[in-house]
């Protein structure tokens, strides 16, 4: 049976072109900027790509063998406490993370001092010392690669501290390159808040995920893996429910997986009714409220008025719109509903057109939902 968290593995986000672009960047003798943004809408497979890059760069001979190269995976939500009254840092996870880096470095014959666990030493000092030892004491032949995920899933003030105290010490060193995954929004606005990280990033360092494999291919792979008994459903049937959606282009892996699963689960019934308005509604909520890599909710539940606002914008505004366009709907950028949509990365400003838009896939699905009166 389909497990939501596993949908991506090798089925939908097997984007060889993207992975090899990032590998080329990581392996290049020199790069213009040390920080690269990996940009994609919610649910498009950023985490999977980062993990694929890590595996390829480490290239272990077997699972327990030492890696060939020092790659550090920084999952931002893991490092902070997300409960409002807790201290900022999740110290036990940070110590574990630093220890993992130290062990990995040791397996590459890079001797790093033990991580001091005294409460008198600040986290930033520990990170600075570790990075200094990696860059100055170890004769690493390739740059250390730091892969950052989930930065836009923690609160803004937490992300600011993660950037300042954890990520900045890495970027201050020439021996490090960093790839930061974030949502499809202007990198200058949301992707990075920290001035040092932004100076080392910039428009030319922004990489957007390329297109997915064909929807037919995705469908077949999905059916074979999660619904192997539904062999009577072929791409011909897929065509019928592709036609049932007017706007959605089957270009979002997370949405595709959700809809395939719904349709295939009901494969015994009338195939022309495989995708219902309720499915579209549930799918939108599922994409927006997906859990993170640690199984925790990325954001709070989306309020009904915010969801209604999303549908209205999708229906009444063009793909790219301006704030005056929004004003015509009686809405302002600083309204609570808009803040929620911006905060969840569902609506963003597009640096190319200097206009605003709803995340691709979500926009079209919302339009299909409103067409069906949902």
């Amino acid at each position, binding site marked *: 049976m389909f497990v939501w968290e596993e949908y991506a593995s090798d089925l939908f986000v097997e984007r060889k072109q993207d992975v090899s672009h990032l590998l080329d960047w990581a392996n290049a003798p020199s790069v213009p900027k040390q920080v690269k943004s990996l940009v994609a809408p919610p649910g498009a497979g950023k985490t999977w790509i980062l993990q694929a890059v890590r595996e390829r760069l480490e290239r272990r001979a077997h699972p327990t063998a030492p890696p060939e190269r020092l790659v550090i995976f920084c999952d931002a939500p893991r490092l902070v406490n997300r409960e409002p009254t807790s201290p900022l840092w999740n110290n036990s996870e940070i110590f574990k993370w630093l220890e993992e880096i130290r062990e990995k470095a040791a397996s590459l014959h890079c001797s790093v001092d033990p991580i001091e666990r005294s409460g008198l*030493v600040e986290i*930033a000092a520990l990170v600075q010392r570790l990075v200094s030892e990696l860059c100055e004491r170890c004769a690493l032949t390739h740059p250390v690669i730091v892969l950052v995920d989930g930065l836009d899933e923690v609160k803004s003030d937490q992300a600011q501290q993660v950037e300042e105290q954890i990520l900045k010490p890495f970027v*201050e060193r020439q021996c490090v390159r960093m790839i930061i995954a974030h949502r499809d929004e202007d990198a200058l606005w949301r992707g990075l808040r920290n001035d040092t990280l932004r*100076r080392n990033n910039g428009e030319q360092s922004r990489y957007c995920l390329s297109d997915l494999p064909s929807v037919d291919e995705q469908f077949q792979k999905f059916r074979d893996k999660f619904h192997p008994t539904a062999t009577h459903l072929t791409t011909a049937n897929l065509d019928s429910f592709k036609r049932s959606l007017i706007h959605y282009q089957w270009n979002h892996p997370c949405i595709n997986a959700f809809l395939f699963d719904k349709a295939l689960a009901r494969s015994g019934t009338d195939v022309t009714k495989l995708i219902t308005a309720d499915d579209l509604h549930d799918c939108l909520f599922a994409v927006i409220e997906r859990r993170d890599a640690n199984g925790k909710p990325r954001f709070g539940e989306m309020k009904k008025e915010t969801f209604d606002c999303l549908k209205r914008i999708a229906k009444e505004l063009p793909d790219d719109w301006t*704030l005056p366009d*929004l004003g015509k709907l009686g809405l302002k950028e*600083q309204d609570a509903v808009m803040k929620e949509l911006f905060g969840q990365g569902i609506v963003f*400003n597009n640096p190319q057109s200097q206009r605003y838009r709803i995340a691709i896939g979500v926009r079209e699905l919302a339009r299909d939902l409103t067409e069906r009166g949902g």
Partner: protein
Amino acid sequence: MNADDVAAARRLNPRLQFLESIGLAHDPFATPVAEQELKIEEIPPRFYSYFTSPSLAAQDQDIFQWLRASNHAFIYGDPGSGKTTLRLTLEADCRTRLDHTLVVTYNLGDDIPQPLSPEQHWERLARTLAIDLFIQIVEQFDSSQSNPPATTLRQLTNLSHCHLRRVVNRILENPRPDSPAGLGAYWGLVNRPAVRYVPSSPRLLDMLQDALSESPCLPPPDGIELVNTGWDIAKQWGFKRAIVLVDGVDTRQRTVEWMLALVEPLLQSLAHWSEQAIFFKFFLPTELQNRAQDVLANLHLAYVTDKIVWDKESLRELLKERFRAAGSRKVGFDALEGEGLEGKLDELILESASGSPRRMLQIISALIDVHIARAPNEDKFTILDWEKMRQDWAFEPPPPQAAS
């Protein structure tokens, strides 16, 4: 300022109230002068989040890469073209890129009544070098693999004319200040901005304690030796080269002769400093360009030179950055165009700025003030605001162009 103070200030300040109503969390147009922006904002300063890179007239490469090269450089710019902003951001960039470069800010500010002799330059330079070196040692303490004795910090305190003693005392009194900059919160005591989070560790505090233990402050040596002493200490701490940022040449007087006399001892010494791996970056007014180049031509030195330029696209980017830094997703004023300005306010602002970011910020600030005086509860600017702003224009002439 805590959240309550901010809310109270807003209630009393119609400008802040208006800015809040159009979605700005603070006033990103408060002043067009870099050093003032740096001082009025919080720690760490918001100033750095405003930075937008200008272009260079003759270079196509990254401006920081160009400025950080190991050579002497002369960068010229008209008043308000952002020389000081660039200098301050370059300083921040050097302090947050740990490649064994010491960055020293040599500001020839308005406390200089007449051009300085070489000896006076060395004394001032040594003092500022000591302060910058101390700060960068503390900032990079946990990142440094060097371990020189505490006596080196004591020497720096002397070289700084004991200005650093106050900083050390404050750190030891409260090594964990409640500030997002950590120990960087204390840099204001010696007139330096906080550019990174500075943690405190028992090892650092022990060393600072040792540095204080001997008193009193001894008088430092004289002449160029002063600078050499400071640079020797820097090398013990692992610094391999220094970049000296010379700015503020036109603060006191703007006559070419006076400004040239002020920098000439530095120009004459550049060959000496190259041998020490100390490189000067001069941020100079455009009117000095020809005369300075004449002096340099006779010195047979290797150096690079260029001029700051702003095209409309860079200014647009700067405007967008200001909105972004103040928490808004606006990319310009198009959402705020009222009667008579529909579809043209951004263009009017950018055109009227005439390639000067300072002038652009002055126009915006003046426009906001006029609008608040006329219609504080309306969020759209009209042609009445624009024309009144032009009429009342109190900055460098000419006034911004007419809207019609």
